[in-house]
């Protein structure tokens, strides 16, 4: 049973190495030699194979940035950031690309340390951590009930309470992350920016424009061709073509 569980846990790890380091080195050599288009093509293949690999997104973002495609670069960095928010390189390049588009990673007035703690773990890591804590809380609780009255039972019960509180904390953290600028967000990837229409169709009036690389909130994605997007800072919302916005 233990082996089966280990296999289940490690299966994605094994699959994650679907391409070898030599292939990546070749792509990085292309990047090094200013052949960004070719490098980007390779990085995109990695991203398609392993959507949860932050380095694929990060490297593709770098190639796009070199090609002066800031919007797609911001989108790729944002994806990488959501998958691995602790990495200083991903954070730096996202911040750099956002600054190029007049935005900031750190909200006004927010201490950097707090922002770092807020993004210490990725959404997936918080979820996995909460699941582990749930298991631990339940098993410790069971031990506490079984050893009811014994000193070890009291210790198990205390462990259960602590881990349960931590599990709830994780769930709260995950909930708080739903309000982050990257949750339910998108990036304007169209060169030169996107038009915001007052409805999902060309027959509606253009009500605003959003520059390339801007982080936006995707409010509605039911329509086949259009997203309803919001610009929280400006208090503007409208509809933009799905080809002009990439959901993070």
């Amino acid at each position: 049973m233990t082996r089966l569980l280990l296999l289940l846990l490690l299966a994605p790890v094994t699959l994650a190495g679907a391409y070898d380091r030599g292939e990546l080195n070749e792509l990085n050599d292309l990047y090094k030699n200013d052949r960004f288009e070719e490098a980007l093509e390779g990085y995109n293949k990695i991203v398609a194979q392993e959507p949860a690999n932050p380095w694929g997104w990060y490297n593709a973002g770098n190639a796009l940035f070199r090609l002066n495609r800031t919007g797609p670069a911001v989108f790729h960095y944002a994806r990488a950031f959501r998958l691995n928010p602790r990495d200083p390189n991903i954070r730096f390049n996202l911040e750099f690309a956002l600054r190029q588009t007049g935005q900031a990673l750190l909200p006004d007035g927010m201490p950097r340390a707090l922002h770092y703690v807020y993004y210490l773990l990725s959404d997936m890591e918080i979820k996995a951590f909460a699941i582990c804590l749930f298991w631990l809380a339940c098993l410790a609780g069971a031990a506490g009930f079984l050893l009811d009255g014994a000193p070890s039972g009291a210790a198990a019960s205390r462990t259960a309470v602590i881990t349960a509180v931590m599990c709830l904390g994780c769930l709260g953290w995950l909930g708080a992350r739903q309000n982050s600028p990257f949750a339910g967000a998108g990036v304007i990837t169209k060169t030169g920016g996107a038009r915001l229409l007052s409805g999902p169709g060309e027959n509606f009036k253009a009500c605003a424009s959003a520059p390339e690389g801007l982080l936006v909130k995707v409010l509605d994605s039911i329509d086949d061709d259009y997203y309803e997007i919001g610009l929280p800072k400006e208090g503007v919302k409208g509809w933009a073509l799905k080809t002009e916005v990439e959901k993070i």
Partner: protein
Amino acid sequence: MRAPGNGLKLALALALAGFAGPAAAALTISAETDRTSVEINENLYLTVQVAGDSSSVPEPKIPNMQNFNSYSSGRSQSISIINGKITTSVSFTYILSPRFLGIQKIPSISVFNGTEKAFTPEIEITVTRPSAAAARPAAPRQLQGRGGRTAAAAAQNKAEGRIFLKAETDKKTAYPGEQVNLSVKFYTSVPLTSNPQYMQPPLKNLIPEDLPPIRSGETTLNGEHYAYSEIKTALFALSPGPAEIKPASVVVQVPSNETLDPFDPNFFQKFMSMSNAQGSSREFATEAVSLNIKPLPPGAPAGFSGAVGNYTVSATADRLEAKAGEPVNFSITVAGSGNLKAVTAPQLPDLQDFKVFDTMSSLDIRKDGDIIGGKKTFTYILVPRAAGRKTVPPITFHFFEPRAAQYRELQTAPLTINVKKGDLDSKNVYFSGGAAAPKVTASDIRYVSDEPRAGFIADSAEGIAALPLWPLTLPAGLMLATFWLSRFNRFKSANPLLFRFHRAKSQANSAVEKITALLKAGDTGAAVALLYDSFMYYLSDKCGVKVSALTMKKAAQLIKERFPAVTPRAMEEVRELWTALELRHFSPSAAEPEGVRNLLKKYSLLITLLEKELRRPRP
């Protein structure tokens, strides 16, 4: 990829960027030449300067120039931080060789950073004939220009003897890093039907640097008139020992004078493919050239870092007055002839009065007179710690001069900066702690990652998060089950009589089986004793009192109180069995096996009866 101190670099970069604010990038481009008139056999330098207030600027787009051959000759970058605002300026240098006489135009050069585009105006250059003193024996011309005029007159077998390639160096021995010029000359006295294709020689223990442009001319050798093209390359040896220039080669098309045989079966094919412009392909190669690379003489000074050439060094600051906390750009320039690419930054002395930040180097290479040289500038950001007159002491630079075969030591002049008291804002660039000076390189995005996988934590998290939710019911179910068990045990502890009442029958039945076994074994005494005990415990469990406190009278009273529905017959059976058991228990001689078996049967029937009677509802 992750150098130590990255955090500090990031912090400083962001602090500096915070000063700059989200201002829009102002991209500018300018171009200038070192002269407006040039002789056709000379070169001129075109310098394109791109500046912007972002931390990186894009490369200019050099248009296709028909009237000039252009060669890149390096770039130099300067970054200035004034009042927290970063301004970057990059100068790109190109060597231009004119191709035609008269007024020639350098077209507009553009630069684009993704949002803004900037252009330079056109530049007019007057290209004149070479002056008499400087003129070469023969006017330069393209070798292929002769081909079309006299192609038909050449003979192939003659041609091969009249075409050759020659490689020679200006010296046979050199020190590592010393310039050696390689000249590859292609001679021909016959016309060619296409442009020759030159293939660079492979090099061993040498690194090359082009020396443009390609020289062309005419000369007479052994009474034969030749046109030649010369390609020059500067070579720098890497380490002491043998070095080799392997054969360079040129592939040419020489005219074919093959006659047509009208009776040849392939006559028409040959006739149709015949043309004056066509010929056969021939390859000509040079001999390999060996060089002896001598080791540098012993006694290198401690600060020597491998610079070889002939240099001067100077130090400058972008301003000599600053406030405490304000960055000052301090530059050390190494200029002269030699392989400047290999020159490393001089070691700065310990500057107590300044915080020292990043080193940025810019390179401006010149190739005048086939000598590689130019200047390399190392820029440091110095932040004065406190007000007062602060001096940067002389900086020492060591190099080896190959011509004199001696090590040289140069020093810059000391530089004094008048530091005034800083305001609060400027203090933001300070960072406390740490003996080593932090470095800032916030001018560009960070390099690509060579990590093939997300990492163990991320991979494990992905694996766990991808599991279905139903396994979570297992620990929850286990906890609930143990919770119920715990409550049950507590209830059991709190209500022992209830459990004794329910347990009495099963224990009695168990005892009956054991007594039967004892009787079969012939141990009548033990069987009687066990039967007596079982009966007493049964009544004790049903009445809820201890065995020691149980008498026949009390048992009857308790049974009547707790179970009023019990019939008098059942009570009578109890009394009879009790009496009979007491008799045999306390008088073992009366315990005969047959009698005990009867008592056991009676006990079994009594239990069955009592179980029914005791469960009967109250009347």
